[in-house]
Structures are given as C-alpha cells and as structure tokens.
C-alpha cells in the first residue's frame, strides 16, 4: 500500500465499482427482457437499481474525489453523487414494493409460477 498515491487508490476502487455496476446493469437489462412475467421481472429490477445504480454512483463519487483535473467542483460532484446514491438506496425498493402490491391487488399481472398463494385468501376476506 505504501507505493500507491491516494488519488490513484480512490480512482482504482471507484473504477472497479463502476465496472461491476455496469456489468450488473447489462445482466439486469437482459433479465428484464428475457424473464417471463412481471413478478419474476421484479428480481431483475432489483439488480438493476441497487447493483446497477447505487454501486456505480458510489464509485463515481470516489473517482470524482480522486480526480484533481476536475478542479474545485470535484467535491460538489462527489457530494451530489453520494446524495443521489442514498436517495436511490431508499426510494428504489419503496417504489418497486408499491408497484408490486398494486399489481397484485388490481390483478393486472398474473402470479406465476406459484406453489401456494396465501395472500389471495387474505385479500378476498378484506374485500368483502
């Protein structure tokens, strides 16, 4: 560790995070296209938001903090990236959860494949 300057260390760690995030993004988009129905596609959306958006944002913040050629505004860019990452970490699961609940209750998407559906009995009792 003694030979690596701090800015290169930040850029290396951030760069690895950006590359991992981009690869997860590609995997999530392939899954979004290939999976059979809505409730299975939720899984791809989770990978696409947390691994594909949160992780590269933290990596971009590290890269911006380590890149001196960006000038004085690099701290603004790093802080903005961290704020965006935090917002996505909180808002993405909440949004997709609300969407899944609405899709189930309005019967817009079919629940498939399934073994047993206990929530169905509960919703039917609630609607009466």
């Amino acid at each position, binding site marked *: 560790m003694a030979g690596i300057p701090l800015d290169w260390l930040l850029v290396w760690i951030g760069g690895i995070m950006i590359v991992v995030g981009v690869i997860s*993004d590609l995997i999530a988009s392939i899954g979004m*296209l290939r999976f059979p129905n809505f409730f299975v596609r939720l899984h791809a959306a989770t990978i696409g938001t947390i691994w594909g958006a949160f992780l590269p944002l933290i990596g*971009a913040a590290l890269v911006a903090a380590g890149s001196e050629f960006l000038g004085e505004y690099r701290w*603004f860019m790093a802080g903005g990236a961290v704020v965006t990452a935090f917002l996505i970490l909180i*808002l993405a699961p909440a949004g997709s959860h609300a*969407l899944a609940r609405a899709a189930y209750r*309005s019967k817009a998407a079919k629940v498939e494949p399934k073994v047993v559906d206990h929530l169905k009995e509960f919703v039917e009792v609630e609607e009466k």
Partner: protein
Amino acid sequence: MIGLEEAVTTLIMVTIPVYVIAFTLYSIRALKGPTIPDTTLAIDAMTYDLAAFLVVLGIFFKSPILIPTAIVLALWVYALDLYVAKYLEAKEMGE
C-alpha cells in the same frame, strides 16, 4: 505510465457502450411490456441507471451541471412509481 486524467477518460469510454446496450434492452421491454406494471418497472429501472450514467458523464465531460439532473431524475421516477401504483389500486390519480 499513463496520467490520471487519461486513465479515468479511458475507463468511462469503455463503460459508455455497455450502458447504451443496457438502455436499448430496457427500452425494448418498456415498449413491448404486455401490462402497465411491466412498462413502469422497465422505465423505473432504466431511469435509476440513467441517473448513474449522468453522474459518470458529468465526470467524463468535466461539467458539474449534470449532477443535480441525476437527483431530479431519481425523485421523478419514484413519483411515477407511486402514481401508477395508486392508479392501479384505486383507479384514481389523487387530487
């Protein structure tokens, strides 16, 4: 030994085509999606990734003005999620 600026620029130039391919695949699902939740979910995932892409592009072009755009995008697509969920469940948009 290459400079720091060159290394960062090369890294981002490698990632840009992968991002564009991912956005194309998301767009195909958003256009095809058989039901409304499918379309919304594809737009949702695509826009969160677009926010990350904008921050990366801000580093690439050395322009800090692209950073607040990413925050607005993340908040906007959360509002889209909630509105669509509310419409599907209650069949009204909310006053």
